[in-house]
């Protein structure tokens, strides 16, 4: 075991003072160099050993990984309102309300037939734990995570993101249409039943 010798002589003191001063001067003289906001895969990422390390954040930022998990986005045109995401969500931050469509409302971009409207499709980003489970279960890949991670709000209510493409009036109309259709179907059923009874 080697014993570290405590150095107290005048020579040693001056030596250590000079080496300290040289170190800070070295940093001061290399202040013209600056770290660049490049991704870790960039060749120069580990080469930037000298110069200032601060990035002036809102003006420049390190790129985020492609598969990073940040703010959710739902492309409502491709959503079939299957409710899988809301079911798998461990923190229940997704609220979905669905209304059956009365007519043909087209297909998603991957060809799945859409049968439901979503009068409510809310994600509470303040509750979200960014686990990404909802994006894995999504059958049409309409729910994705974007590279946006900086979205503070003054009012916490604004952290609830509304993805529905229906206005409240439109949603009401769709509901009424569905009720009407169901009433008609019920009436038709009742009529058919009555007719059968008369026959029998």
């Amino acid at each position: 075991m080697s014993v570290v010798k405590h150095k107290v002589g005048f020579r040693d003191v001056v030596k250590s003072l000079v080496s300290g001063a040289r170190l800070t001067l070295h940093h001061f003289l290399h202040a013209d160099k600056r770290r660049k906001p490049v991704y870790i895969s960039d060749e120069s990422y580990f080469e930037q050993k000298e110069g200032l390390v601060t990035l002036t954040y809102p003006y420049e930022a390190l790129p985020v990984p492609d598969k990073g998990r940040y703010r959710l986005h739902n492309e409502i045109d491709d959503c079939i309102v299957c409710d899988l995401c809301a079911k798998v969500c461990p923190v229940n931050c997704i609220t979905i309300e669905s209304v059956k469509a009365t007519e043909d409302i087209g297909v998603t971009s991957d060809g799945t037939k859409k049968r439901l409207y979503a009068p409510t499709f809310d994600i509470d980003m303040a509750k979200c734990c960014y686990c990404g489970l909802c994006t894995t279960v999504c059958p049409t890949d309409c729910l994705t995570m974007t590279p946006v991670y900086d979205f503070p709000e003054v009012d916490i209510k604004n952290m609830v993101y509304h993805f529905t493409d229906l206005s409240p009036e439109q949603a009401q109309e769709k509901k009424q249409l569905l009720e009407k259709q169901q009433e008609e179907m019920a009436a038709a059923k009742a009529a058919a039943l009555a007719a059968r009874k008369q026959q029998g």
Partner: protein
Amino acid sequence: MALLAFVITISLMLVVVIVVVYAERKVAAFMQDRLGPTEAGPYGTLQPLLDVLKLLQKEDIIPAAADKKLFAVAPILIFAAVFAGFAVIPLSPTLVPAGVGIGVFYLLAIISLDVIGLLMAGWGSNNKYAMLGAMRSVAQIVSYEIPAGLALLSVVMICQSLDFQEISYQQGVLMNAFPGLEQEQNWLFGIRSLGFETTTVGGLTTWNIFRAPVLLVAFIVYFIASLAECNRAPFDIPEAESELVAGFHVEYSGFRFATFFLAEYAMMVLVCLVAVILFLGSWNTPLPNIGPIALANWTTGAPGGIASVVWGGFWLISKTLVLLFVQLWARWTYPRLRVDQLMHLCWKVLTPISIGLVLLAGLWRLLMI
């Protein structure tokens, strides 16, 4: 004339202080691989001005249990003591606010008043951190005045004068233009028997640290002691942020705090100015006359002319800024000393060295005549 000198001195002091405050933040940032202020103005240059504006808008709080009179007077007294020191600083061959014959003595005396202000602030605040800070500060400043004073004394012995302006003239090509010094001669390293006269060479060769190389050691002693006198790191125990919050001015806010802040930085500027005047050739150029290439004459100007005022001010200020940079450099490099280490350095290292220096300076003076 007195009013003009007052205005020039205070505006010059404010400008230099603003520059130093900005430089402090930038130098600190660069040494720690940070950016420093970047938002306020181009490269953050408006930061110190905006800091002052912010301080002026703040509420002026006087603690209920404070000794209100002492609390109110302390910042004014400290600033007045430091600012009064600027009165005897020669800015160029002809420009000096107050050409006092005993300038060095006056400066040492008036700066000591600072200690009373510190104690008043610490005691008046009725706060234990402020009191501890003030006591440490006073102990430190009073102790370090001894090596600093002795180092200045060795300069006085070499120069045979207490007049800042006379000491300034002795360190350059204009020496014989000063009344009373017409027959004086400068010799290389101050040793007459070497037979190498530097009276007309000027530049670096006639600066006090070369005119009498013993003063180079005195300069280092004075510089270390002056760091302690203006409570700068590594001797910032009175203000030790990590243990005493802010030392004696912990209870101060707004304008009163701004006054302390200004006084502290003005003190830094003042001790550097004194170091430059007494050791590093004052307002004299560092460039010597080499044969037909009269660099010293070209960068000095004829005394009395505008050129000499501009050159004198330029050399004085730039040398001061270099020393101020060294102060900042030391602050952002060295850790704070313990109280016992501080006293050890003062009483067991610097004081014996400076007493030896006084003796050596006396002997060296014998070589010069």
